[in-house]
């Protein structure tokens, strides 16, 4: 039950569908909720996290803002392709504070996790922290 920052464990964000130099994708996995990655318009939006090695994950915890619907996919290959569906979730709107959610991933190991934000409560959504428990 260790909740450490992903970047310190060698994980990387290898793809994002939006980029703003002021809010880089590393902010998703730096363990800090004060920094964030933000989408820059239209849906869906997505980002992919790669682990240094196949990793057992039971739960992902996410701090986000204005995300309405989220889909998570994973794979166990070396390349960021051929994902399989894991779970999806409708998040509540939390005006003025972050959305904090723990999402069960049904166990199993993964080398890549793909997060697809299909809808938001606003034109722009932000992701402040993603961390895992194994």
């Amino acid at each position: 039950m260790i909740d450490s920052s992903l970047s310190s464990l060698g994980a990387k964000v290898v793809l994002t569908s939006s980029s703003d130099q002021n809010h880089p994708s590393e902010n998703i996995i730096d363990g800090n909720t004060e920094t964030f990655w933000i989408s820059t318009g239209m849906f869906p939006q997505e980002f992919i996290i790669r682990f240094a090695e196949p990793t057992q994950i039971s739960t992902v915890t996410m701090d986000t803002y204005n995300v309405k619907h989220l889909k998570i996919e994973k794979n166990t290959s070396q390349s960021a392709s051929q994902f399989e569906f894991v779970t999806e979730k409708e998040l509540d709107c939390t005006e003025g504070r972050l959305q904090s959610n723990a999402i069960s991933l049904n166990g199993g190991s993964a080398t890549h996790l793909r997060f697809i934000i299909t809808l938001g409560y606003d034109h722009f959504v932000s992701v402040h922290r993603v961390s895992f428990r194994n």
Partner: protein
Amino acid sequence: MVKLRAKCLLFGDAAVGKSSLSHVFYRDGNLFQKNYSMTTGVELLMKSVTIPESSDSVELYILDSAGKEALLESCEKMWGEPSLLCLVFDLTNEQSFANCSRWMERVQAHCQGLHVPGVLVGNKLDLSDRREVQESEAKEWAQSQGLEYHETSAKEMINCDAPFLTLARAFHALYQERCETIQNLGPG
């Protein structure tokens, strides 16, 4: 530096000049199609607009929809979650202006209660002797709907960039505002 992306709905009565307007903007005023060809589905045009006094830009994905009622239903399927609205009427056709309220209601159903910046465009400014809608009247209605008002002539290529620049700026301003809000959020 950031590149924003906005889905911009272009809508209004048939034959008011929606496609002409977007094509003149898209091609930097190089071409005005002299013969009318009705848009029967949805046409997508993308153009990037640089925001003045910044290194930021907004990519406008302009969805030009058929104005004819019979063809509209299939177009509406692509209207989900718009970022920006561009409602066009014909300055020489009172009815096309009167129908704007109905158009707004129709589009609003796809906005999911979100604030979506928009413009109202009175086109065919070149046909001044046939004008049926006065500027003050159109401006007043636009204001009541929270839209900015522009008059254009796609035929004479007058002012055609202005509505789209207004939209790009509005979207950029909204983004900056949201970034600031998010920066100051409390923990969950």
